């Protein structure tokens, strides 16, 4: 798998038309990181596999093209802030951060081991370079990212703030408290991305709470809202570029995704919220994700 590690050296790319139309390199990274997520889930028995596979494309685009962050200076004052509000996507975030060069891939050999900082959710900043907030309890990340955005505005810093939410997380009232305040304060430097994989832990998200129409709800709360295919890099790219153009209101990207995306027998099967693959299942999954 080392061949793809060269991508680590790519750094955050300036977006050209070529890139907008051709995200082949990102697709290769996505394949590689999906493999690593599956291996970790199987070997270390880390759950939330479906949730990680649904958001990995979003994370890759963010870390390779969108976020102004420097893996060599992860605490730079003017950096953009990314908060994984759906903290259970940590196995995907850790892989993205390692591949992007925030820390050595070798550190992930400790994933899930006793005493390691790499477990099911991100710890507080200071333990893993690139992690901006400890999440895992849902409904905290977006309000924290909003606080960061307001602080940056007050300090006249150009940093933007991003939060990646799950659709289940939108059950939490604090998300809508933050939504109302961000709109009232016209915090246009805040972008929320919802990994809308249509499932939460124990059922269809729209059946548990009246979640839909989700994008319209955000519009009604005063946000600029877009709906995209969250596995299509060109659509992710356009949506984030559009979000940057908003100068009077926060922006939400409702990213339609497939839970477990990339492995046919895991896709849209909610058993994989908690299940981890056995050896046989891992081999079958990896066979679908061969790296060229």
């Amino acid at each position, binding site marked *: 798998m080392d061949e793809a590690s060269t991508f680590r050296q790519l750094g955050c790319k300036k977006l050209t038309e070529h890139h907008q139309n051709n995200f082949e390199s990102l697709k290769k990274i996505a394949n590689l990181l999906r493999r690593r997520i599956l291996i970790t889930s199987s070997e270390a028995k880390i759950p939330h596999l479906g949730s990680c596979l649904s958001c990995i494309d979003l994370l890759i685009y963010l870390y390779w093209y969108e976020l102004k962050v420097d893996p060599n200076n992860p605490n730079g004052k003017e950096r953009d802030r990314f908060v994984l509000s759906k903290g259970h996507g940590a196995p995907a975030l850790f892989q993205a951060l390692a591949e992007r060069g925030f820390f050595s891939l070798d550190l992930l050999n400790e994933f899930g081991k006793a005493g390691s900082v790499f477990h099911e959710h991100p710890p507080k900043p200071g333990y893993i370079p690139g992690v901006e907030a400890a999440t895992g309890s849902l409904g905290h990340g977006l*309000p924290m990212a909003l606080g960061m955005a307001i602080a940056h505005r007050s300090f006249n810093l150009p940093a933007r703030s991003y939060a990646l939410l799950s659709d289940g997380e939108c059950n939490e009232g604090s998300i809508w408290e933050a939504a109302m305040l961000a709109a009232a304060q016209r915090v246009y430097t805040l972008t929320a991305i919802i990994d809308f994989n249509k499932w939460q832990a124990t059922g269809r998200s729209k059946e548990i709470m009246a979640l839909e129409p989700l994008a319209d709800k955000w519009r009604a709360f005063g946000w600029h809202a877009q709906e995209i295919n969250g596995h299509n890099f060109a659509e992710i790219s356009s949506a984030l570029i559009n979000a940057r153009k908003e100068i009077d209101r926060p922006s939400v990207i409702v990213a339609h995704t497939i839970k477990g995306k990339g492995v046919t027998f895991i896709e849209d099967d909610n058993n994989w919220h908690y299940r981890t693959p056995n050896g046989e299942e891992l081999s079958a999954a990896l066979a679908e994700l061969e790296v060229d």
Partner: protein
Amino acid sequence: MRNTFASEITKIAQKREDIFLLSGDIGNRMFDKFKEIAPQRFLNCGIAESNMMSMAAGMALSGMRPVVYTITPFTTTRCLEQIRVGVAYHQAPVVIIGTGSGLSYAELGSTHHSLEDLAILRAIPGLNVLAPVDSLELSAQLQEAFESKFPTYIRIGKKGEPILHTDTSKLGIGKANLIREGKDLLVLGVGPILNEAMKAAQFLETKGCSVAIASLGGIKPIDTAFLQAMSCRFSTWVSYEEHSLIGGVGSTLLEWIQTHNLMDKISLLRLGTPDEFIHHLGNQSFVLNSLNLDSHGLVNQLDKLINGS
């Protein structure tokens, strides 16, 4: 006390560009001066305390020194997980002010009473838990809180509380002080209710009883040097608080005595509110009286302790 908070925070914000005041739709007109000097650093966050507390944590992680202000139940138990995770776990140096604490808003009913906040917040790692007795102690603690790398909860009263400290040189976080000298026993407590203890002590003095009173200033961190010194002087301690007997000042002192192997040397009487919600309402004085926790109730209980009955 709340007016002192408003004027102190305004003064501090004049000197420091990183102070940001978040209010939960409360304090109408109280912060007019603050808004005049730092309009961009005041935000009414509405009636949405969970978001307000997480925002404060996020702001602190980005270098701001936010202070969150609303009525105690709403800035503590209403958003407890946001305090625990966002503020305390991240060691985000947020200052949390709970106003109208204890039974300050007695007539507003149990929804507005805060008799569990000290117990609950004390259990959270890395959070200073303070309850100043008067405006002087509040001012000293507030200034220190903005220098601290830890988050701080400050439980204050409402308005018109008398000044009880005469020496301000040793006030601050984790600093206890005697506010009245005495010989027979020591009352240790937090918050403006200690004024009731002062009145009781004055009355008992006419009967020949000499009661010392200490303001602990808070329950975390605890002033161990002070308590050790007091353990050499007094064998009878009385904890006194406008808070449940479970988990507050009395519990903290009991734990301290046990940890320091002083169980045989010190007898501790714990006075506080019972383990129940209060339905029969009146103003603060009425409720304290009905709970036997005002100066009259205290006189009776201390008298028994000193003279037996």
